[in-house]
């Protein structure tokens, strides 16, 4: 028989005690110092800034690019960063680039709004009737995987060589992902919130505007973001392929034309403009909207 099996661990009975609660002032008066948080060093503080870290990364990439260009030493194949920046600035100052960008953005805006309108119509149908739901599920399953650009030949047949066909493909690229996201957002609104809305006697329309849309806003915003990126991509591609069709060319046409004329630095400047505009919308427009809404409400981090 081992000793351990018979051992009983009896904890000792200790005396009780109470401590009167001292106020913070009393604690301070008694000289019990609360250690202050250690201040961050300059480098640590700078390291906290995300934009700074990203800018440094971008600068490194630019240096690498410039080095590559100098090493290959062929303007036609790979113009350097400085040369591209120069083309970008010159194009902007001469008003050539802004004109092309303006044309692109104007078409984009029309197609985007048409797509948003279509998506909201479709989701409204989907949440109010079962047929609408079936329709949305079927149509999105069919058309969401279909690249918008693949529809351009058909669009050209239907709407001719003009803005109409571009707006059509843009609408197609925005509508399905947005409808899918919005619908998913509506469906994930908590049952309690719906019941609370019905409890106050909200009608069908106010139920959508006052409960469903704000509650689904994170999903709707992400749908709008995806839709915007898809539309921008589709537009540039469409202009590259069929740029001449719209009479006045857009940014894609500028890129295509510059390549034809072997202005490779302008090609890169055009690509840079595409990237810059994309970043601008993502970081300024959408982030601002998110900061003022879903993040402020604690619905998204």
């Amino acid at each position, binding site marked *: 028989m081992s000793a351990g099996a018979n051992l009983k661990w009896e904890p000792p009975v200790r005396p009780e005690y109470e401590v009167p609660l001292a106020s913070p002032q009393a604690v301070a008066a008694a000289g019990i110092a609360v250690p202050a948080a250690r201040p961050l060093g300059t480098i640590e503080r700078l390291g906290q800034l995300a934009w700074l870290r990203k800018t440094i990364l971008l600068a490194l990439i630019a240096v690498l690019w410039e080095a590559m260009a100098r090493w290959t030493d062929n303007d036609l194949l790979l113009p350097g960063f400085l040369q591209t920046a120069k083309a970008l600035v010159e194009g902007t100052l001469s008003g050539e680039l802004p004109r092309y960008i303006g044309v692109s953005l104007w078409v984009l805006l029309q197609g985007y709004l048409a797509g948003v309108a279509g998506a909201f119509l479709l989701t409204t149908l989907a949440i109010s009737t079962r047929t609408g739901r079936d329709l949305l599920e079927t149509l999105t399953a069919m058309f969401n995987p279909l690249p918008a650009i693949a529809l351009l030949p058909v669009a050209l047949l239907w709407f001719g060589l003009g803005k109409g066909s571009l707006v059509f493909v843009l609408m197609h690229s925005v509508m399905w992902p947005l409808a899918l996201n919005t619908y998913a957002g509506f469906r994930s609104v908590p049952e309690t*919130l719906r019941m*609370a809305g019905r*409890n*106050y006697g909200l009608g069908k329309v106010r139920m959508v505007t006052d409960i469903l849309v704000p509650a689904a806003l994170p999903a709707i915003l992400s749908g709008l973001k995806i839709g915007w990126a898809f539309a921008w991509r589709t537009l540039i591609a469409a202009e590259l392929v069929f740029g001449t069709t719209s009479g006045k060319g857009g940014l894609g046409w500028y890129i295509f034309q510059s390549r034809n004329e072997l202005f490779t630095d302008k090609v890169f400047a055009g690509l840079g403009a595409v990237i810059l505009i994309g970043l601008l919308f993502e970081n300024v427009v959408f982030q601002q909207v998110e900061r003022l809404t879903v993040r402020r*409400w604690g619905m998204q981090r």
Partner: protein
Amino acid sequence: MNVLPFQVVQNEPLLRARGVTIDYQSERGTVRATQDVSFDVWRGDRFVLLGPSGCGKSTLLKAVGGFIAPRAGSLQLDDKPILAPGPDRIVVFQEFDQLPPWKTVKQNVMFPLLAGGLGGKKIGRKEAEARAMDWLARVGLAPFADAYPHTLSGGMKARVAIARALAMQPEILLMDEPFAALDALTRRRMQEELQGLWEASPFTMLFVTHSIEEALVVGNRILLLSPHPGRVRAEINSHQFGLHSAGGTEFQATASRIHHLLFGEGGAVEHDEHAVAVQS
């Protein structure tokens, strides 16, 4: 609605449930939630529906709220049948997401006032704001009027929901296990505060809980329901108990009587974290 002085003799109950049978559809077919349940709630009652899970107490409350239509039987409020949800029966839910996160605390309290009006009449934004601030002050949340719900603790969210409901001055306040998601200390505090609000200006309340102690402390009359399906087991008076009678012998006796009624002789030792805790 004017608050009636409580000495007034009432000859009609406010809420009348008669032979209420509720079925709901599940994946395995139709499930009976409650069967032939009848009870009366009078003005000024703190009427508790008490029973283990599966006794249909929440379903019953949602039927009174107008969210579920009974399969048989009738529910009448002030002699009018209950057909749909309405602002005369405001529900306080258990879930914290009952507060729209995009509205501040004050806007949350104002929202139903602006949407549903007060006693069937539309009221202006100014009046709604004044009422909201008044009720927020009563639950001690006036300093947080402009905070968003996600910055509040669970107990504070429950307070906002209660203020929002009471600001509407509903005919009857429906509370669906409002404190079940709170920790034990906060729950006790909320029970005290609810008691205080009721004493300051009495209202009628239908309160669902699965805690015997909470039922005895919060309610003045308790309807005991047996599970699968929910049937009436007993109706018990608890007006004599308050928050400070929890340790008393009479309280303990009633609690164990309820326990016997719900779980039978053998079930008395069945461990339940919400069963009456022996307090000194």
